[in-house]
């Protein structure tokens, strides 16, 4: 399995660093709480899907395109969204576009849900372009899902803390990107 990104030296050559299997609790930039999760690349799909399962039955998805493989990094990210979509449909679409979602570093994927009553605060899981996962807020449901998969609270820093990373962009993901947007009937926003 190709990692979305890997740690490298300043000259772009691999530095041998391996992603730990752990999570950290942080205060998010907006003052809320979050978990920052690092897992080896081959465990990313399982862990990501387990966290998404904690979001409830209906999900909102934002696909944030950061890079166009043909032209490079976009001057401004492009957002595609779908709202209030059955979780099963979202998971099915993510599976179909698995190489894009879990092996390609051109995008971030923001998924929001509401696991309890309609007035409950929204919770979300963000998969960034490096393969680092963020859960908002720091909640026991997320911690339980992680612990069940052997991902434990720990001090180890993930790829988000490395000085240089190499992000992978896959040919095969081009078509999967179009398919994901179509499958989830996503609309471009903020263009």
């Amino acid at each position, binding site marked *: 399995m190709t990692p979305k990104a890997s740690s490298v030296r300043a000259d772009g050559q691999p530095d041998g660093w391996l992603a730990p299997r752990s999570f950290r609790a942080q205060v998010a930039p907006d003052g809320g709480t979050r978990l920052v999760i690092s897992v080896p690349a081959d465990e990313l799909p399982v862990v990501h899907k387990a966290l998404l399962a904690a979001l409830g039955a209906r999900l909102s998805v934002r696909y944030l395109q950061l890079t166009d493989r043909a032209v*490079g990094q976009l001057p401004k990210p492009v957002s595609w969204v779908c709202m209030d979509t059955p979780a099963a449909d979202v998971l099915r679409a993510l599976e179909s576009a698995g190489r894009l979602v879990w092996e390609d570093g051109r995008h971030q994927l923001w998924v929001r849900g509401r696991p309890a*009553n309609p007035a409950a605060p929204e919770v979300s899981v963000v998969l960034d372009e490096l393969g680092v996962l963020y859960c908002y807020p720091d909640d026991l449901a997320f*911690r339980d899902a992680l612990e069940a998969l052997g991902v434990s609270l720990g001090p180890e820093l993930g790829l988000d*803390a490395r000085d240089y990373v190499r992000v*992978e*962009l896959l040919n095969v993901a081009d078509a999967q990107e179009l398919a994901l947007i179509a499958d989830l009937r996503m609309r471009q926003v903020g263009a």
Partner: protein
Amino acid sequence: MLAVVIGLAWGRGRTSDRVTSAAGQSPPFRLQKVGSARGPTAIAVTPAGLLLVAEQAGTIIGIDPTTGKSRSIITIPSVSSGGETGLLGLALSPGWPADPRVYVNYTVRPEAGLRTVVAWIDAPVEGAADPTSLVEVLSFAQPYSNHNSGSLAFGPDGSLYIGVGDGGSGGDPEGHGQDTTDWLGSILRVSVGPGIEPPHAYAIPVDNPFVGKPEFLPEIWAYGVRNPWGMHFDRGGDHKLYFADVGQDAWEEVNIGVAGGNYGWNKLEGTHGFPSGEPGTVGTVPPLAQYSHQVGASVTGGVVCRDASLPSLVGTYLFADFATGVFFGYRDGVSSRLASTELHPSTFADGPNGEVYVADYTGTIYRLAAAP
């Protein structure tokens, strides 16, 4: 396959201790670092000035604010920590150290689900605190993992006041704020300490406001709160109870404690109807002050400043917003924005001479010192 190399320079520095005020005004205080702690949630100060700091994961550490030296005092067994759970409250017995009990408020997660426990433990500080000395005062189930409050404070009457959140989720879906047949969404008042020994864990003060009223549990002293975070009795003035109540969607509030008071949640958020946002009148006790979510997102209750080295702040109730780091002051009916910081203020405390301490959740304990 195309590989892209991106150079990253993520900021890894600690939170700045910079304090700023509105243009043209000098900050009313500066932040003087006195120690460090991991996820500090509560501070109690001994008569000698030693800071006892509760770390969310379950450890109490002692910090000498004059040297910055710290040491672990005790780790509470079985604490379940994460999110809004963990070791959340700490209060010294009023008779400490002759009565060496330290009261703690924390969450546990047995098979049956999340519970809050209020307990005491012998912690003479100079000796080795013994985890096996822990005695449970009371405990109750938490239906959701958030809004566990945890605030503890001893009043000048010697009673222990316990802040209890509404049980969590969002909007108080089970209506605990206005339900006085359970403890959730209330401030409890109980008698503890010497003379009340197991099997009796606490006694109900005879002057509790709802004693003898069948529609109320007798431990309830006030109700209609969502997530009281930070309770403090003014060590000067008329020794009133001040507490903050974290809001839901739009308003954060601070309050004066009133026996028998209904603070309105979940019919009111601040002075506004919930969820309508229209002006409301359900609560019998309006907030002392409120601010909107345009200014912050989660209020942290503070202390009434009685530190003579901060003359411009003496008599001012200081509080802050956890999310934005804004510090506020309330005095003589006026609430004002005092300063902006980069802190995530999680708890305040005051020392024997009124000195004011504030914890930044990301790991630093500060004293508010006179601005240069």
